[in-house]
C-alpha cells in the first residue's frame, strides 16, 4: 500500500498526477456507498411520487390534475410567481448594482440584511405578515376599517413569497458582478454611452447567465414555497390554495393518488429547474 508516486507513474505514463488514487476495489466500494445513500434519499422519493400518482391508473391521474380546484391552485401558483419573481429580479439587480459597483459605508451589513430571509424559518416568515396585517396585527384594525384583506387572501400569499425568495437573485448576482469589476462600464461611459445604454448593452450581457440562474432558482422557490404560504393562506379551497397547499389538503383527506398526481407537477418543475441549472453551469464553465 506504500506504492509511491514513481511506481504508479511508471505503470501508467499517460495519467501523471491523477494516477495517485485508490485501488479499484476501494473506489467501487466508495462509489457504491455514496450511491446507496443518494439512492435512498433522492432517487426513491422521486420514483415514488410518479409511482403513487399513477397507482390508480392514468384516468385518475388526469382527473386529479384537471379538477377545478387543482386548476385554481395552478393559476394562483403561476400568479404568485409572476408577481414575486419579476419584483425580486429588479431587487436583485438593484442590490447587486449598488453593492458591486460602488463603495459605501455599511455595505457588509446590507449584504447580511439581504441574506436575512434565509436565516428565518418559513413559518416565521409567514407569521410576521400575520402580525403585521392580521386581524389582531399592527395594521389589522385600519385594514378592516378600509375593507382590505391581505391575510387569508392572495396579497398575503404574494408578500410571504416575496419575502422568502428575496435573496435568491441578489445572491447570484453580487459575487458575479463583484468579480467582473467596473472597467468595461467605465470605458462605455467614456465613449459616450448613457448610463442606461451602458447597463443594457455592457453590464446586462455580462451577467445574463447568472441572472437566468437566479431567476430559475427564485421561480422554483416561489412556486414551491409551503411553510410561509401555509401560515398566511387560511387554506380556502380554490381561492387561497397554491399547488403545495393543494397537495397537503388532498394528502390529509387520504386522497393519496390525487395528492401525488398534483405533486408530479411540482416534481416536474423541480426536474426542469435542475436541468436548466446544469445547462447554465455547463455553459458558463466553458
Amino acid at each position, binding site marked *: 500500500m506504500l506504492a509511491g508516486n514513481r511506481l504508479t507513474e511508471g505503470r501508467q505514463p499517460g495519467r501523471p498526477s491523477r494516477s495517485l488514487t485508490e485501488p479499484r476495489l476501494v473506489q467501487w466500494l466508495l462509489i457504491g456507498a455514496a450511491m446507496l445513500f443518494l439512492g435512498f434519499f433522492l432517487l426513491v422519493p422521486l420514483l415514488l411520487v410518479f409511482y403513487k400518482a399513477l397507482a390508480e391508473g392514468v384516468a385518475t391521474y388526469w382527473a386529479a390534475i384537471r379538477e377545478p380546484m387543482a386548476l385554481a391552485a395552478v393559476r394562483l401558483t403561476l400568479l404568485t410567481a409572476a408577481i414575486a419573481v419579476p419584483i425580486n429580479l429588479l431587487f436583485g439587480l438593484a442590490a447587486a448594482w449598488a453593492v458591486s459597483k460602488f463603495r459605501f459605508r455599511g455595505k457588509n451589513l446590507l449584504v447580511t440584511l439581504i441574506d436575512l430571509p434565509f436565516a428565518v424559518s418559513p413559518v416565521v416568515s409567514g407569521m410576521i405578515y400575520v402580525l403585521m396585517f392580521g386581524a389582531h396585527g399592527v395594521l389589522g384594525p385600519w385594514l378592516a376599517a378600509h375593507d382590505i384583506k391581505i391575510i387569508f387572501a392572495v396579497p398575503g400569499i404574494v408578500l410571504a413569497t416575496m419575502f422568502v425568495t428575496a435573496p435568491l437573485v441578489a445572491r447570484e448576482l453580487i459575487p458575479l458582478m463583484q468579480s467582473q469589476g467596473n472597467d468595461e462600464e467605465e470605458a462605455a461611459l467614456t465613449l459616450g454611452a448613457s448610463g442606461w445604454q451602458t447597463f443594457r448593452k455592457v453590464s446586462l450581457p455580462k451577467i445574463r447567465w447568472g441572472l437566468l440562474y437566479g431567476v430559475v432558482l427564485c421561480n*422554483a422557490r416561489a412556486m414551491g414555497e409551503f411553510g410561509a404560504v401555509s401560515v398566511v393562506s387560511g387554506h380556502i379551497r380554490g381561492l387561497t390554495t397554491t399547488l403545495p397547499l393543494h397537495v397537503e389538503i388532498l394528502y390529509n383527506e387520504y386522497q393519496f393518488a390525487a395528492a401525488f398526481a398534483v405533486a408530479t407537477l411540482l416534481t416536474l418543475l423541480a426536474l426542469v429547474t435542475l436541468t436548466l441549472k446544469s445547462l447554465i453551469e455547463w455553459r458558463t464553465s466553458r
Partner: protein
Amino acid sequence: MNTLEERDAVPAVENRLPVPVAAVPPKNGGSRQRSLFSGGSVLPGFGLSLGFTLLYLTLIILIPLSTILLKTFDLTWAGFWATVSAPRALAAYRLSIGASFIGGAINAVFGLLVAWVLERYEFPGRRIIDALVDLPFALPTAVAGIALASIYAGNGWLGRWLEPIGIKVAYQPLGVVVALTFIGLPFVVRTVQPVLRDFDPEVEEAAASLGAGRWQTFRRVMLPELLPAVSTGFVLAFARALGEYGSVIFIAGNMPLRSEITPLLIMIKLEQFDYAGATAIALVFLAVSFALLFVINLLSWRRNRKLSASEGGD
C-alpha cells in the same frame, strides 16, 4: 451623430470625478473594483439602486420582522418566560435542535463521501447524479414530505422492511431526522466539491513520496484542508433544518412532547390566535438561528483569512 452625445457625456463624467483615479490608493483587499470613495464611482445609478434596495429591504423584510419584537412586548416578563420554558416548548426545541444536529452530522459524513466520489472518480451517470444532488433545493418541501412519509410508513417501500426488525421511522422522532437529512443533503456536498477540485495534487504526491499510504494521506493531509468546508456545510445544513417545516410535518406524527418540531408549535399557537405566545417562541428560535448565521460568517471569515495567509506565505 455621436459627437453631441460625447460632448455631453465627457464633462459629466469629469464632474463626477473630483479626485483623479490614480490619486486614491486602493483600499485593502476584497473587492477588485476601481471604485474611488464612498459611493463615488463614475458609474451612474448609485442613488437609484441603493435607494430601491433599501426601500424594498425596509418594507418587505425589516418592518415585518420588527413586529416580532413589538408583539413580544405584549407579554410580561413572567408570561414570556412561562411560554418559552413550558415543557411542550422545551421538548420542541430539543427535538428540533437534536434532529437537525444528527441530520447535519449524517450529511457531514455522507456529503464528504458523495463530494469525493463525484470529484475523484469516473463512473456512468456521474453528471446526472451530480445535478440530482440539488434536488432537495428544487423539490417543494411539501412534495418531499409526503414522499418520505409514504416511503417510511408501515406499509411503505422501506417501512415494510424496517418495521419487522423493530425500526419505526414514520411518525416518530426518527422520521424527523430522515426529513432533515434530506433537506440538508446538498450543503456539505456543494461546499466540499470546490475545495476538492482545487486541491493541489502536488501535496498528495509529496505525502505519497514520503511514504504515506492513501488512507494516511487522506486523514493527515487532505482531511485537515477539507474540514473547514465540511463544517461550513454542516452549519448551513443545520441552520436550514432548524427552521424546516414542510418536509417534516407529514412524517413526524406531530405528537406534543414527542415528535413536534418548534416551527409546528409556532404554527399551532398562531392557529389558536395566541400571537404573543407564537412570537415569544419564534424570538427564542430566531436568536438561535442568528447565532448560527454569525458562526457561519465567522467560519468562512477564518477560512478566507487562512487561505490568504497561506497564499501570502508562499
